[in-house]
């Protein structure tokens, strides 16, 4: 028997509770664990943002319970300026790393990539288990920063040096908390690299008979492209964090120049380069934001095709656009650094590919819109979030167009315009992708349906609410409202406070609306209506598993054979207007 025919993954079903639910090598369990971790992270991050918004408009208001968490940071529950910045740092770090990299990519990808390509599990199940638990350790290290005496770090999720590299002399929040931050991200990078490796090997090597790359669903392509990006991006952040830790604890001078007088403490460092940190960080940081959005693009495309009951105008184009975005994402990092002091000529060099990235993004948007034409679009919670995604992707993308131009960036850099831009694309659009995926795949993951009415209310309130929060950010930016301020005391900022109050009300309202989702998730898990095997009449392999949730090896001892691409919608078949990928039936004429 040749080497190649030995199955790559072949583990028996687990028996003990620990093996089934805790230290499991089953990609489905690991996917749910990532989702649960992302859920905890997003709730924490959201609460942090409420505290921030409340403090901005009611600076002297005590936040109940906060005084217990940090006597120094919030005496009597009133947030100090340094604690505001710490909350902001933790908010960004939690959201970007532990929510936006975890949920659309690690959670749904782990759960569904193997099934969609007809495999039993990921290529390296034990690495997969390690990936999750290493991510969990990274999460614990980060949360620990809340409880150290100097408090959590306050240098932002971007942790610019020298502020982040000097240590305690740089002020409150820059003690052990910042070191823990760097260690946490270091550990997170290792986990992400292992995960990316798994995704790539699985996609390339574990596809079942008949599942050519061209027949993979768009979302599987998205996970694959994302993992390629992640592999190279996290590999750069990892040594960067190492160098940062060394500057902080070992006295090296990678990022700290000589001659610094910080609060009357002369720093002994020599000749380091703060710009070096920025280059290393953003070389990772820009691909990272595409890691956050590409899976959502894949999920939304996947669900929309099913909801429209018709293929996209061109799936290949969407896939090529995703590849193009992935490739270009490595050439644009300097657009975060136009005003950083790097050679001004390089600003123009970075601006050009940044503007060019608009092209594949526009192509995809036009294809989505063009595909809606003439479709039989089913409206439900999942498809509504997909439509909302398109709206948000347009809004967020359009504001990026401003920031891509260095001359405009002179005025808009470091204002709320930037904050509005990235919240719309990452903080809303990508999250909508996660919501859509949840409503769509919940029946397959749990065997029950989520409540459709609650889902729709969740959508309406969130859609309107997030526009109310983040659209005004752009107006503030145009007025020159500087970001990362813990209070608005400047002459020109005081008149803008009514806008901030409106935003805070919208934020609290939208946050409350998420309770509907959480309730729906938990209630439906226990008491939701039993789901049919293929409630959405979908074609891809996850809907052909013998049960919901799928058995431990996904297909019940059988390996599926694939006869079609996943876009057989609008065809005459014995099952209706679609053909599953596993169906040997041939399509009749398209009606």
């Amino acid at each position, binding site marked *: 028997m040749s080497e190649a025919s030995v199955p790559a993954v072949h583990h028996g079903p687990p028996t003990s509770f620990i093996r089934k639910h805790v230290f499991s090598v089953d990609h489905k369990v690991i996917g749910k664990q990532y989702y649960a971790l992302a859920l905890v992270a997003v709730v924490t991050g959201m609460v942090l943002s409420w505290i921030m918004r409340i403090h901005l408009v009611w600076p002297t208001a005590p936040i109940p319970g906060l005084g217990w968490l940090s006597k120094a940071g919030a005496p009597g529950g009133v947030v100090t300026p340094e604690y505001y910045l710490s909350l902001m740092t933790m908010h960004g770090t939690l959201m970007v790393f532990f929510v936006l990299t975890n949920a659309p990519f690690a959670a749904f990808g782990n759960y569904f990539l193997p099934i969609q390509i007809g495999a039993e599990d990921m290529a390296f199940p034990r690495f997969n288990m390690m990936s999750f638990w290493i991510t969990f350790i990274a999460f614990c290290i980060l949360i620990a920063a809340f409880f150290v005496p100097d408090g959590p770090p306050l240098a932002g999720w971007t942790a610019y040096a020298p502020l982040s590299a000097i240590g305690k002399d740089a002020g409150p929040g820059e003690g052990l908390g910042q070191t823990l931050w760097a260690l946490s991200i270091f550990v997170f990078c290792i986990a992400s690299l292992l995960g990316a490796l798994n995704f790539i090997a699985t996609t390339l090597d574990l596809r079942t008979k008949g599942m050519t790359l061209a027949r993979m669903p768009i979302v599987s392509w998205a996970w694959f492209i994302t993992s390629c990006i992640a592999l190279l991006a996290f590999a750069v952040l990892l040594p960067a964090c190492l160098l940062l830790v060394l500057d902080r604890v070992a006295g090296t001078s990678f990022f700290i120049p000589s001659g610094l007088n910080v609060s009357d403490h002369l720093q002994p460092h020599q000749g380091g380069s703060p710009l070096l940190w920025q280059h290393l960080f953003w070389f990772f940081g820009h691909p990272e934001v595409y890691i956050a959005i590409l899976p959502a693009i894949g999920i939304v495309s996947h669900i929309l095709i099913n909801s429209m009951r018709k293929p996209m105008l061109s799936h290949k184009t969407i896939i090529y656009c995703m590849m193009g975005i992935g490739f270009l994402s490595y050439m644009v990092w300097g657009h975060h650094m136009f005003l950083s002091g790097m050679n001004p000529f390089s600003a123009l060099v970075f601006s050009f590919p940044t503007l060019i990235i608009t092209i594949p993004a*526009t192509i995809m948007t036009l294809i989505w819109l063009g595909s809606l034409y003439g479709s039989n679009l089913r409206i439900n919670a999942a498809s509504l979030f997909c439509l909302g995604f398109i709206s948000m992707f347009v809004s967020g993308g359009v504001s990026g167009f401003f920031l891509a131009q260095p001359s405009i960036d002179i005025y808009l850099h470091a204002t709320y315009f930037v904050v509005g831009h990235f919240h719309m694309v990452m903080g809303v659009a990508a999250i909508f992708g996660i919501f859509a995926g949840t409503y769509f795949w919940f029946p397959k993951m749990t065997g029950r349906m989520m409540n459709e009415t609650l889902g729709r209310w969740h959508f309406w309130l969130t859609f309107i609410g997030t526009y109310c929060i983040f659209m005004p950010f752009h107006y503030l930016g145009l007025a020159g409202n500087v970001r990362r301020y*813990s209070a608005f005391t400047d002459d020109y900022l005081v008149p803008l406070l009514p806008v901030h109050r409106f935003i805070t009300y919208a934020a609290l309202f939208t946050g409350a609306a998420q309770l509907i989702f959480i309730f729906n998730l938990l209630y439906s898990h226990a008491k939701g209506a039993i789901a049919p095997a293929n409630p959405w009449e979908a074609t891809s392999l996850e809907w052909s598993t013998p049960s919901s949730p799928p058995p431990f090896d996904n297909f019940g001892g059988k390996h599926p054979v694939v006869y079609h691409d996943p876009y057989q919608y609008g065809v005459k078949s014995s099952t209706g207007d679609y053909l599953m990928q596993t169906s040997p039936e041939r399509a009749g004429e398209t009606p």
Partner: protein
Amino acid sequence: MGGKIFAVIVILIALASAVPIITHTFLGASVTPPEDISTHGFEIDKQLDETMVEAGLAFLAAQLVLGFFVWQFGGRKDAPLKNFPGGAKYLILAALLLVGAEAIALGAVGSKAWAKVYFQPASADALPIQVQAGQFAFYFRYAGPDGKFGAIHPDKIDEGNSNFFGLDPENDVAARDDIQSGEFVIPVNKEIHLMMHAKDVGHSFYVRELRLQQDFVPGLDLSLHFTATKVGKYEILCTQLCGLGHYNMRAYLNVMTQDDFNNWLKAQSN
């Protein structure tokens, strides 16, 4: 039903979003860049306006088409499926040509404004002024009658005794007549060469009315040059996260007539 609701809501949101852009106000507050008092800013403003029109039209068009299509096709059951006329071909072409042309045009035009600020060095007769950013204040230094700046000694910085720059007037002749100020005072219509020095961590210099922003980088000698065209007081803000006092780190740019400036400078020397 849900499709029609979505269509109405997304179109309303799109139109509502455009209103503050056109009226420049939101909830009673002015949400537009303030008056430009620089010689280079008009190009930035033009760029901003052009981008706003193009991006705004693209935004509105996309949201309206989205709403319209969802209105038409949302909730349709068993109707014959149709493909968008021309399929993907024309859409791809449109994206390539329209966006590509726009991107290249804006990039090319925008680079002029950028070049004006950054590629040209300060002219030889610009007034040199130094600014030092430190946690959490800006201090400005004028060279005094000798036209030379004394050297900075970080170990000699003593804020309590107003030695903000760490000057050593005893041993450094050039430092003896240097003038320190917490306010950035400049004459109107005179080019200023602003030399930027960071004392501790990263900061940034931002004056909205000057359409000027530049990071301070510890260890790097960076500079800006500009000319202010209107007398008045304008806020200088720190826009690079520098610690707990970041929100409070500001100074005032005070643009005076040349005569007033000369008088001010003389008064500082005494």
